[in-house]
C-alpha cells in the first residue's frame, strides 16, 4: 500500500464523489426541467434549480481536485524530480514565456496561450528549460442565431530549450510536420532516405544542415522520435536547440478516477527523464566543439 499517497487518494475520492453526485443531480435536474417544459412550469423551475445545485456541487468537486493536483505536484513531484535529476528546479504554476515558444520558429502565434510545469536547470553540464504548453486559435462562426466564438487547440504538448554545443551559421529546422514560419529557409535533402521520409529539413544555409545533422545525430533523432509519440520538431537557432513535441498530452497531471500509486509516479518520472534522454542521445553534453566560458 502506498501510504505516502493515502491522504491524496482519500481527498481525491472525496472530490470524485462530489463530481459524481453533482453530475447525477445535474442530470436529474435537466430531466425534470425537460419534463416540466412539456407538462407544467413549476416542475421546470424545480428542475433548473436542481440542475444549478448539481452543477455547483460538480464545480466544488473540480475545485477540490484542482487543489489536490497542485498540492501533489508541490509536495510529491517537486521532491521526486529534484532527487531524480539533481540540479533542476520544478515550478508547477509557472511555464515558458511566449517569447521562448515562438523562438522555435515553427509554432505560430496563439490567440490563447497557456503554459505550466516549468522545469529548468543543468543536467550533465547542459542548461535547459521546459514546460507544458497549450496553444489555441480563435475561431468565429456566424450563424443565424448570432456569433459563436470558440478556440481550437493546435498544440498541446511539451517544449524544451537546450543549450547547444555547436556554433553554426543561420538556422536549421527538422520537422515531422509543418514548415518554418520565417522566410529564407529552403528544404534540404539529407543522405539518409529514411530520415528524409520521416522528417522535413529546412535550413538557411546548406552547410549548417550537414554540420549539425551528422549521421549519428540523424539516427539519434530517429530514435527519439520513436520513443516520444507525437509530432516532433527540432529547431536549431543561435546557441539553442528547441524541441517541441505535440502529443496532445498534459504531462505531470493526476487523473480523475485513477488511483495515485507508484506506477503513476513512475510514469511522471519517465516523462521527466525525457530531458536527460534528449541530452544524452543528441550528445549535447559533448564538449568537443565549443570552448565553454566559465559560468559564474
Amino acid at each position: 500500500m502506498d501510504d505516502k499517497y493515502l491522504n491524496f487518494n482519500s481527498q481525491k475520492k472525496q472530490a470524485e464523489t462530489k463530481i459524481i453526485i453533482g453530475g447525477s443531480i445535474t442530470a436529474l435536474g435537466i430531466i425534470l426541467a425537460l419534463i416540466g417544459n412539456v407538462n407544467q412550469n413549476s416542475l421546470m423551475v424545480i428542475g433548473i434549480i436542481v440542475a444549478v445545485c448539481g452543477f455547483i456541487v460538480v464545480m466544488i468537486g473540480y475545485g477540490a481536485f484542482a487543489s489536490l493536483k497542485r498540492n501533489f505536484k508541490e509536495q510529491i513531484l517537486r521532491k521526486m524530480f529534484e532527487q531524480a535529476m539533481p540540479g533542476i528546479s520544478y515550478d508547477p504554476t509557472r511555464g515558458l514565456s511566449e517569447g521562448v515558444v515562438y523562438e522555435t520558429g515553427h509554432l505560430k502565434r496563439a490567440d490563447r496561450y497557456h503554459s505550466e510545469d516549468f522545469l529548468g536547470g543543468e543536467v550533465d553540464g547542459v542548461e535547459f528549460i521546459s514546460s507544458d504548453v497549450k496553444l489555441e486559435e480563435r475561431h468565429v462562426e456566424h450563424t443565424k442565431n448570432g456569433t459563436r466564438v470558440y478556440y481550437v487547440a493546435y498544440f498541446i504538448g511539451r517544449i524544451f530549450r537546450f543549450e547547444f554545443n555547436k556554433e553554426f551559421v543561420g538556422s536549421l529546422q527538422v520537422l515531422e510536420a509543418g514548415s518554418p514560419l520565417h522566410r529564407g529557409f529552403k528544404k534540404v535533402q539529407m543522405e539518409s532516405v529514411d530520415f528524409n521520409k520521416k522528417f522535413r529539413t529546412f535550413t538557411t544555409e546548406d552547410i549548417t544542415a550537414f554540420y549539425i545533422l551528422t549521421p549519428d545525430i540523424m539516427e539519434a533523432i530517429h530514435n527519439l522520435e520513436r520513443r516520444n509519440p507525437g509530432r516532433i520538431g527540432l529547431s536549431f537557432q543561435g546557441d539553442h536547440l528547441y524541441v517541441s513535441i505535440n502529443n496532445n498530452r498534459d504531462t505531470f497531471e493526476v487523473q480523475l478516477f485513477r488511483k495515485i500509486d507508484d506506477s503513476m509516479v513512475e510514469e511522471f518520472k519517465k516523462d521527466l527523464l525525457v530531458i536527460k534522454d534528449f541530452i544524452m542521445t543528441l550528445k549535447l553534453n559533448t564538449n568537443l566543439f565549443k570552448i565553454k566560458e566559465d559560468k559564474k
Partner: protein
Amino acid sequence: MITLSLGTGAIIAIVIVALVLIVVFWFIGVMNQLRQLELKVQEAESGIDVALTKRFDMLTKMLQTTKGYAKHESETLEKVVKWRAGIPKEATLKDKEEFFNQLNQVAQGINVVVEKYPDLKANTVFMELQTAVANTEEHLQAARRLYNANVTRINTIIVTFPQSIVAKQIHMDKKPYFEAEEAKREDVKFEF
C-alpha cells in the same frame, strides 16, 4: 464577326511549332537546372577547400605547440603533408582527397604523441587547439557530405532519361565523389 478558318496544313504546322517550342523550353529548363546544380557542386567544392585549409592551419598550430614537447615527432609529422603552403589553385579533387587523408594521418599522429607525452594534456593552448581541430574535422565532414549530396543530385539527372540527352548535348559528365579512405585512415601507424 470575324471567323478564322484554318486549313489542315496550318493546323499541323501550329501543332509542330507548339511541340518544338515545348521541347525547346524543356531543354532550356533541364539545361538551366544542370548548370545551377553544377554551380552548387563547385560551391560545395570550394567549401571543402575552406574546411581543408582551416584544418591544415589548426593542425599546423598544433604541431608548433607539440614541438616544445616532441620536436622529432612533430617534424616527422610535418613531412607527411605535401602542401606546406596550403591548397594550390590547380589542385584536382583527387589531390584534395589525398591532402585530406594526409591531414587525417597528422591528426592521428598527434594523438599518438599526446599518448606518449601526457604533459601535453596539461597545456591549455594545446587542449583548446584540440577542440578547434575536432571542430574543423566536423566542418570538413559536413563540407564533404554536402558536396557528395550535390554530386548525387546532379549525377541522378545526368544518368536519367530523357534528361541524359540534354546532359550529353551540353557535354556534362558525371561528377566525381569526394571520398575519404576509411581503411587507410584506420591502418595508419607511426614509428617515430
